[in-house]
């Protein structure tokens, strides 16, 4: 009997110890957030590496073997909603645009930037077709809609500065992206910043300005909550490595159609993505590197966020970016030199097409 008990005990210890050790090291779930949602709040995202990984279930596959669940959240409230969730410690990883990112840091939310999710996106200032607005200068006194607190608001401010205007010279109305389209098509607003093509195709809006200058828009990034990183650095490493491995598939031009088809699960038409990426190599748009372009863009955003008085506290980029995971992953996957680096002006540093 005694022997039997000790046998059971030994067995329990044998089974239990590794389990206990694992439980100590691994989180039960990894909570990932997108600062966006599909049309009508569909739980889907597009246009970036993380969105592709979500659609293809890459991270689930990576972590399934350890019984770690991957939870995805899609915020209709965009970047500001992501910040609220981060403050409540409800998310571990997220993608975000530059304004909410800097606002979070100014308010003491601690994150570490791991990689770029997408860059060089194309946007347009659009106006209802019948509008008399022809140039950015014409926007003075007009109603324009952006989702407040998102990267779009910062882009708008940069645009306005170019032509000597301020946000207060216009009527800026907060709307989520679905509502923006509705308001444009009914003429409730005079302008918006949009990348989507469907309203253009339907003849409801006209593009008056193309936002393509890499200095007018910042890349979006993937970050991890500092607390999570401190606790589970190995999970962060696996997360980054899995994402970069996936990126090789995503930037393969063979998969271009497939990629856009996956993204159109957001409810936005396939043609939106086709048009948006026209003339671009996937490899450049979905470039995960933390290069000179990224760091200088981030520093520029920080300065502008302060300049436009979106935050009143000071923000420093010191210790914010954590490139070590990316570097390790590139090395492990033998992808060093796979992506080109870009300089502060968004120009390619080395000749293309090696």
């Amino acid at each position, binding site marked *: 009997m005694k022997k039997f008990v000790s046998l059971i005990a030994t067995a329990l210890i044998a089974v239990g110890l590794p389990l206990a050790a694992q439980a100590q090291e691994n989180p039960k779930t990894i909570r990932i957030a997108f600062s966006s949602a599909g049309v*009508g*709040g569909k739980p889907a995202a597009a246009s970036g590496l993380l969105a592709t990984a979500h659609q293809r279930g890459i991270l689930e596959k990576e972590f399934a073997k350890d019984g770690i669940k991957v939870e995805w959240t899609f915020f209709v409230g965009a970047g500001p909603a992501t910040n609220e969730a981060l403050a409540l410690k409800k998310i571990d990883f997220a993608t975000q645009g530059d304004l909410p990112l800097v606002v979070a840091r100014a308010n003491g939310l601690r994150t570490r930037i791991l990689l770029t999710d997408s860059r060089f996106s194309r946007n347009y200032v659009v106006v209802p077709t019948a509008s008399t607005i022809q140039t950015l200068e014409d926007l003075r006194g007009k109603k324009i809609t952006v989702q407040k607190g998102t990267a779009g608001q910062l882009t708008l401010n940069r645009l306005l500065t170019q032509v000597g205007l301020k946000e207060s010279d216009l009527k800026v109305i907060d709307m989520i992206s679905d509502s923006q389209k509705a308001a444009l098509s009914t003429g409730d607003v005079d302008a918006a910043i949009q990348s989507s093509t469907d309203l253009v195709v339907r003849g409801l809006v006209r593009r008056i300005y193309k936002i393509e200058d890499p200095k007018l828009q910042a890349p979006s990034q993937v970050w991890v909550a500092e607390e999570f990183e401190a606790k589970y650095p190995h999970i962060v490493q696996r997360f980054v490595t899995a994402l970069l491995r996936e990126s090789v598939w995503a930037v393969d031009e063979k998969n271009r159609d497939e990629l856009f088809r996956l993204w159109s699960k957001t409810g936005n038409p396939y043609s939106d993505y086709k048009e948006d990426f026209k003339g671009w190599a996937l490899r450049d748009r979905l470039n995960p590197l933390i290069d000179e372009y990224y760091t200088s863009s981030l520093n520029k955003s920080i300065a502008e966020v302060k300049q436009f008085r979106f935050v009143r506290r000071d923000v420093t980029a010191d210790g914010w970016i954590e490139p070590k995971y990316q570097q390790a992953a590139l090395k492990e996957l033998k992808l060093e030199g796979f992506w080109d680096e870009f300089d502060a002006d968004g120009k390619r540093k080395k000749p293309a097409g090696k």
Partner: protein
Amino acid sequence: MASLKDKLPAIDPRGFVLPLLLIVVWQAVTSSGWVDTRIIMPPSAVLSAGWKWLNSGLALESIGASLFRDASGFVLGAAAGITIGLLFGTSKLANNVFGPTFHTLKHISIFAWIPLLSAFFGRDDLAKIVFIAFATLYPVALATIEGVRSIAKSQYEVADVYGFTPRQALFRLILPAASPQIITGLHLGLIFAWLATMGAEFLLASTGEGLGMTVIRGRAAFRVDLIIFGMLIIGAFGMLLNELATRAESRLLHWRGHAR
């Protein structure tokens, strides 16, 4: 005993004139093409869109989700409201210490709490339910305070004579005596909870379903038919809740009348 006739007011056909007129005008202007039918949809289009939606399964999910939020928020808010009301009503000290703050905060329009609530609770169901509870709390608490205060001194004296423990006093005297006002407060709370449910779904945009969300998305997708139908459903549920509350109220008060 009130006669049946008193309970069921005779239906005056003149009351139908206005709604019918509205529907006739609505149908007439849309079918004659005087107005942009993209903006003013004919009633038939609204009905058919509504029918499709009802059959899609999405309707049940939306209604269910909204009612769930409504009920959870209401129950939480009502419980908190009655507790606060009893506390303020029975304890002078509590009333003097907390009352002024409570009565001042009441002047902040409930929707103004939404940004703060979303900072603390996010924008999902939790935040919505907290907001609904908050909207329910005030009318219930205020009515309860009023109910408890309206209890005559002599009734307390009777309780004293019988040597009621505080617990007995609460369940045998205070709650029954204050119940008319509390029930009225609950009724009002129910109306506010429904209002708040819609407000929360409009203003705390998130993924997921709900009646308010359906309507607001209908707007984004420019589905005027869905918006109108959604509004009708929201109104119908509001009325249904009100009607149920009215019946429950009169039944409870009736029962109370007998019990006395």
